[in-house]
């Protein structure tokens, strides 16, 4: 009778999938404190980047009316016979906009790649 005490069994098998998934991704899915911290850090890094680009935009393009208003010399300047404000607003602004956009895309994708490495890395 004393031989028939219950045998200890280790529960394995079906749960291994979950064990492998015990990663940041599952923390995010469970909306745990850790998961929240990871999400917030991604959002914060993207927001910081976006606000940085806005600042650059404000300082470059956004400051032009102020510059024209305050400086009669700039307002009246000519380059190759064409008034400078016309050159700047008619042509010069556009490459700046495209460059800012391209800079943003590269940095934003880098932020996301870092996040993917962190979150997806524990998956395999």
């Amino acid at each position: 009778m004393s031989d028939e005490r219950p045998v200890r069994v280790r529960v394995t098998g079906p749960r291994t999938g979950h064990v492998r998934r015990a990663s940041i991704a599952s923390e995010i899915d469970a909306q745990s404190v850790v998961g929240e911290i990871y999400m917030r850090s991604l959002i914060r890094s993207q927001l910081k980047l976006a606000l940085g680009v806005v600042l650059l935009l404000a300082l470059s393009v956004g400051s032009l009316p102020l510059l024209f208003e305050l400086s009669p010399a700039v307002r009246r300047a000519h380059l190759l016979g064409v008034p400078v404000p016309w050159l700047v607003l008619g042509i010069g602004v556009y490459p700046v906009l495209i460059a800012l956009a391209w800079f943003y895309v590269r940095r934003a994708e880098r932020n996301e790649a870092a996040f993917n490495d962190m979150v997806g890395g524990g998956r395999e």
Partner: protein
Amino acid sequence: MSTLAVVAVLVVSLATLGVGAIGLRISRTTSDFYVASRAVGPALNASAISGEYLSAASFLGVAGLVLLRGVDMLWYPVGWTAGYVLLLIFVAAPLRRSRAYTLPDFAEFRVESLVARRVSSALVVLIGVFYLVPQFQGAGLTLRALTGAPTWVGAVVVALVVLANVVSGGMRSITIAQAFQYWLKLLALLLPLAFMLAHWHRHGGPTGRLHTVDWVEPMQGAHAPYLVYSLILATFLGTMGLPHVAVRFYTNRDGRAARRTTVAVLAMLSAFYLLPTLYGVLGRVFASDLVTSGRSDTVVLELPRRIFDGAAGDLLTALLCAGAFAAFLSTSSGLVVSVGGVIGQDLLGRRFDGVTAFRLAGVLAALATLVLTLLSSGLAVAHAVELAFAVAASTFCPLLLLGIWWRGLTAAGAVAGMVVGGALSVTAVVSVMVGETPGGWAGAVFAQPALCTVPLAFATMVGVSLATRSRLPVHLGRTMVRLHAPEDLELDRGSYHPEAAHRPG
């Protein structure tokens, strides 16, 4: 008068109807349209967005304003391009990842409130109609310049083409057709311009009028700093809140593609906007009488015949008219589809089946626009379009920016902010459109309301959200995951499916 140009207008109108009919066979149900084009590459998609975006205001209006008022008007095209930078860095990828198809979808998904959805729907209709009026107006100006017909004739023609398209069910914003429109518009402006610049270079012209101080120097006129900065705020922040732009982002494969598409759009718009300025300058040399006769909005169409006699002038005019009509029709199509979709789904959807509601809504939108066009006071086309941007910047811009980047936004805050920003900006726009504005400083505020209404809308949205912060949306955590996590990660993104709301019809 100019038979060739009338033929060109007819060809463009019939081609639009024809493409609509082909599209009818390709995409028979609403759900086909919503889903089928989801995997369009960034280059094609960018052409389509640019094709739909470049409206009468860009094709005719910018040159007209530059002719009329000079260098300060260059802020219009700059703002309409820079708006895509702001859209890119704050909205493009999260909006695509939200899987919201329309702005009301986004509002419902983010703050989980049907009231917010209804308010957004009403705003989509308002912005859409404000944006449509100058398109119809531009068509009227074009036909008047060609045939001497009164301006209501062109408005009715565009309304009829749009209606025929809606009723036949064919007016889907087909990506390939919209993409073609971009290249047509670019070429239609570029070719005549090249000939006219060559002529000016070889034969010269009276350049005396180019040196007037209040035209050639920036920041002239009363309240110039306020007006310019308010215009900048409206255009930079308004682009992201335009109904027909938001819809187009849904056709991107994922958030990353949405960003790349936006950069391509920026490049295409930049190329296009180099041209209207030169038309304004040429107009100052060869057609300055248009300023005194109050017809500066037609300068693009009038120039070739001022410079070239006979067949050459007629041919170039015909090309420009074709491009102008392409602009009215493509933008009007996109807008009527967006507005019709929203009216059909949120206002008529319970009483009629999907397709009937959509058609009925399209007819209502086109007719309302026609009535408003006939009532409006003939504001400059570009200014009228920019006022629609001011409303979008005062309503959907705060909703998108705060909704995507601030967890604290509540349903009450979103609704209050949109109502305050919407009521103030719409009041200003309507009074400007019917020509009832005060003088002095108040007049400047009415003419360019954004610098006042945008901060007030943001403040209301933040303030009311803080006061109701105990009522945050239930699924906020998952919503933030869906908006910001890259698609290649397998994560739980919640169960919201806008396609379930857009039933196939």
